[in-house]
């Protein structure tokens, strides 16, 4: 099979993942074929046990598949070792988590700098880029605050600045509004939409239909395979 063209961000072929759970083999993913192009805003939904977490881990290069192939930004990553996966995560992927996952005891600025530290950038450049990223999410005046001095929405915005600071080719958001009230959720989704408008490629995992409605394509999973995959207009209620 040929590697994907330049416009393709994610391409998977017959992606499978099995776990040994005691004597039993759990087949979490049973063969997923998926292509996501540049500047798509894709939501993934599915009941628990449908394999969406497993798929997210594989796409986020936190795990490797049991079988099948996965290209990210033109590079086949399904067979890479630990160090190369770390490099891919650092350069290609920006993570936004449900629980924000900011480091406590350190400032917003330092949190945003983390990916740049692992990219090996010198301190001065790190500061500048991190400041710019925080500025972009409207938190220029919160840089020296610790996470516990910030509201939930502010924390998630710091996390988004951190996800974007390395200019990744893919933004992975795992239930980004799961810990937020509906007003703040709206704010965060508005930011995601504006990032999408700016040209970012976004993969969003959620179990809320009204959150999924912000995307322009919805993939549903069931029992480890793709059940539906349909494009829709942003804001239009999803079936």
């Amino acid at each position: 099979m040929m590697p994907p063209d330049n416009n393709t961000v994610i391409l998977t072929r017959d992606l499978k993942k099995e776990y040994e759970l005691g004597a039993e083999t759990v087949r979490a993913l049973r063969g997923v074929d998926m292509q996501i192009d540049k500047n798509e805003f894709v939501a993934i939904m599915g009941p628990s046990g449908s394999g969406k977490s497993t798929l997210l881990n594989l796409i986020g290069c936190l795990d490797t598949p049991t079988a099948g192939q996965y290209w990210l930004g033109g590079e086949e990553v399904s067979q890479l070792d630990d160090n190369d996966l770390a490099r891919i995560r650092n350069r290609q992927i920006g993570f936004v988590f449900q629980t924000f996952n900011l480091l406590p005891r350190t400032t917003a600025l330092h949190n945003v700098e983390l990916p740049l530290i692992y990219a090996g950038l010198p301190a001065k450049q790190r500061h500048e880029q991190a400041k710019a990223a925080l500025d972009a999410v409207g938190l220029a005046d919160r840089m020296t605050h610790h996470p516990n001095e910030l509201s939930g929405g502010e924390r998630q915005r710091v996390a988004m600045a951190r996800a974007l600071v390395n200019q990744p080719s893919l933004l992975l958001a795992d239930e980004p509004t799961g810990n937020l009230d509906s007003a703040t959720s709206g704010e965060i989704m508005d930011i995601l939409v504006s990032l999408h408008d700016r040209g970012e490629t976004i993969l969003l995992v959620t179990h809320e239909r009204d959150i999924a409605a912000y995307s322009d394509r919805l993939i549903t999973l069931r029992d480890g395979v793709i059940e539906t995959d349909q494009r829709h207009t942003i804001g239009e209620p999803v079936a």
Partner: protein
Amino acid sequence: MKILDAVILALRTVWAQKLKSFFTLLGVIVGVTFLISVFAVVEGMNRYVQDDFAGSIFGINTITIERIWSGRGGRQDAQTRRRQSRNPDITTADAEALREEIPNIWYMAYNTDRFMPEVRSGQNKRKNVRLIGVTDEYLDLQGWEIVDGRGLTRIDDVRAIRVAVIGDAIAQKLFPDESAIGRDIRLGPFRYRVVGVLKRQGGFIGVIRDAAVVVPWGAFQADFSRRRNVVDGIQIKFRTEEAMVAGQAAAEETLRARHRLRPGQENDFDIETASEVLDAWNTIKNVLLAAGPGLVAVALVVGGIVIMNIMLMSVLERTREIGVRKALGARRVDITRQFLAESATLSTLGAAIGVAIGTGLAKLVDIVAPLPASVPVYAIIMGVALGLLVGIVFGVYPALRASRLDPIVALRYE
């Protein structure tokens, strides 16, 4: 992640948990404090023994030649005792021969001691006096200072003039209210004129000097000597240790020739140096230096295990953080480095605190006790290096544990 970043991060983490860090470091602090203290005391004792103690008994770079008396040490068998009783006396002729043969002599003197039941002046008397007949360089050689009057001269010696230099305790006793200089003292039937008073030495060692009456060799020979031209000891002082070692060899050779000893035959005389006292101290020092590191090692190992435990706890507590770091692109080596830097920084900090406390203790000892305790630079370097080593050795396991965490599991960790 660069090493410097890792160290800065480590300092930040340590600072964020000051109290916990301090207790974590207690073992290392105690270990290094102990290390520094032991070295400071040993170094201080060393200087004290070399400069003051040994110096005051034998003098630095001085050899003393004496006859070996039978029964000395009490462990010899009858045959050895008999042989030793036939040992020849050391004589003034021996002394003059040594003066000819030994190069680089700085001072040379010989003496004979005699116990005197008392010395008196008018109604005042002092019992149990050590009378020493000496040649003119004796006082200088021994480093016995004169606080009042003068010392003994070559002319006193040659003309057998009845003059005396007396110890402080005798001066106090015989002339409590006035200067002793120019006054007469009675030694048995003889009248001697006091020309000098020795500086008080005091203390345990000082008993000998402070209760001494020192008179010229010539007068001593005439008035008190039982056997003419026999000396109790010959002292020769050199400027350097090398000269002393060479002089000791030359003295041995000269006396063996004079006493007609065949090769392989034992010396029938004794050559003592301050190094014998130093040897005794060295034994004590070696015990200290051997036991010290053992105790230090125990403290450091205990400290290291505590650090390892705390680091393992820290890894567990920060599982989520490790997961986040990995998700953001940290490689295994980055995580390993981070935790290693943390444990190494922690324990080096502990070592630094230990050095500070140890140095403080040494200063305290220096001020409070008569020991000149001083902290040698190599002990400081060693202390800090050991701290660093402990941190690295005991940090490896927790750091590897951290680096091997699965990011998915770590991110889900509550």
